């Protein structure tokens, strides 16, 4: 089989199999939609709220991306600080781990009270807070584990720390960075939706999910989940494409 066809057809087939399994599960058990909606219930839900899905999906998407961008910038800077300075690493790690261990669902009401009514800001903030951790950790580990010889080949020629960072440390860290970014993408979605679902008068797919819940429109809730999964997959593969461009060298030729 052609390699490109295979790369597309295999995951597609897996999705179809999964949907069939889901449909069968609901059908065999005779579950009503309030217990679990079947895939065949979803097209109707999508059709009914077509324009809502578009506008709310867009709201969720841009907030997630913005939060993720902030997480990349902040996480990279924090990772650099911890990667280059032993003292800063010792100082910041426990704080960072502690911060990450706090379930972000508990942060939602605090943030919502802190910045009342700033719904866009709050949502971006939560997406950011939940997703910068893996980026900071991966960058700091990438930089602090750089073998001294890599530094020495440039340092022995009189290169500055900045030159060593741009020419060696940064590109060498890229594979770890993209690995973390893939995790961060899905985390950022969780952050966005936590805020959208929990805070009153929310916007985005999370709010649409919540309105499905209050109206007992169960197929709508499941449709939102599918829409979220779809957006997650799209963003994930955008990251994969970026990884191919900037860190494609790290991928060994098969065989």
């Amino acid at each position: 089989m052609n390699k490109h066809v295979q790369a597309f057809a295999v995951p597609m087939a897996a999705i179809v199999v999964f949907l069939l399994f889901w449909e069968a599960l609901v059908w065999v058990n005779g579950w009503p939609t309030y217990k679990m909606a079947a895939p065949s219930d979803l097209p109707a839900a999508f059709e009914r709220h077509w324009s809502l899905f578009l506008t709310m999906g867009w709201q969720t998407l841009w907030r997630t991306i913005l939060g993720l961008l902030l997480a990349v910038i902040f996480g990279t800077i924090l990772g650099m600080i911890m990667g280059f300075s032993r003292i800063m690493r010792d100082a910041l790690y426990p704080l960072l781990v502690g911060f990450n261990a706090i379930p972000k669902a508990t942060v939602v009401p605090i943030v919502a009270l802190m910045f009342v009514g700033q719904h866009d800001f709050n949502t971006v903030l939560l997406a950011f807070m939940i997703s910068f951790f893996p980026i900071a950790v991966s960058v700091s580990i990438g930089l602090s584990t750089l073998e001294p010889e890599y530094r020495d080949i440039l340092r022995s020629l009189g290169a500055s720390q900045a030159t060593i960072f741009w020419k060696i440390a940064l590109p060498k860290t890229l594979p770890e960075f993209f690995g973390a970014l893939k995790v961060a993408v899905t985390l950022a979605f969780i952050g966005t939706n936590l805020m959208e679902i929990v805070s009153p008068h929310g916007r985005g797919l999370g709010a649409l999910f919540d309105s499905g819940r209050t109206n007992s429109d169960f197929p709508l809730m499941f449709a939102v989940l599918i829409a979220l999964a779809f957006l997650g997959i799209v963003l994930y593969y955008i990251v994969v494409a970026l990884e191919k461009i900037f860190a494609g060298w790290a991928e060994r030729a098969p065989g």
Partner: protein
Amino acid sequence: MENLIEIKGVRHAYRTDSGPLPVLDGLEIAVPEGGFVAVVGPSGCGKSTLTRLVAGLMKPDHGEVWLHGERVKGPRSTVGMAFQNPVLLEWRSILKNVLLPLEIVPSKLSKKEAEDRARMLLSLVGLEGFEDKRPSELSGGMRQRASLCRALIHQPEVLILDEPFGALDAFTREDLWQTMHKVKEREPFTGVLITHDLRESIFLADQVVVLSGRPAKTQYVLDIPRNAAPTLDDLYTTEAAEQLNILRHQIQVAQGRTTEGAT
């Protein structure tokens, strides 16, 4: 003849949690221009510290390191380095890896001339046709050859080799020894070679310095008289056997000292 490298009375200690750990104590090495010194000694005796001192990557507590009549105070672009780990950058082609030092060191060469020089060096070490390959596509010996080209691209006065062939198999190593002689004929340099391999030291160097166990001082210097580049057969003459015997004996003395010091 003026000495290009001079190490005079160098003493150095690393600061550790359990107090200072002296690694060098009374090191004396002098290498004339165009000379090639091999430094051998028990492991952990401070040989790598020595390379970092010559490269200007660190300063000794006491004593002086001189390069070409100037005291070494920091890194200088007239030095080329190669390590046991070839440390090639995986995101660059072999050619771009070789060109790396010229991005740091000011050079009179145009881009075209620099590339031609890199290609010349690569073909000199037998890597013609591999210029556009990635490092991971090359074998260990080939990577080490590329690393050697990178160390030479900016025409350094001093080439520092820190166990460059240590991780290679015996046949590849012997191949590279011969390559080294070929390179030195074409691209003259003054060399410092750190090695564990006594045969390597007498094959490549014209002066072998034996260091004592830690803290290291110059224990013995053996001159290897040389008229032309040797062949591998020259390693199996009675003369070579005598040289190896002397060195082995000196190493044993050096190791004896470390155990005495430890008890």
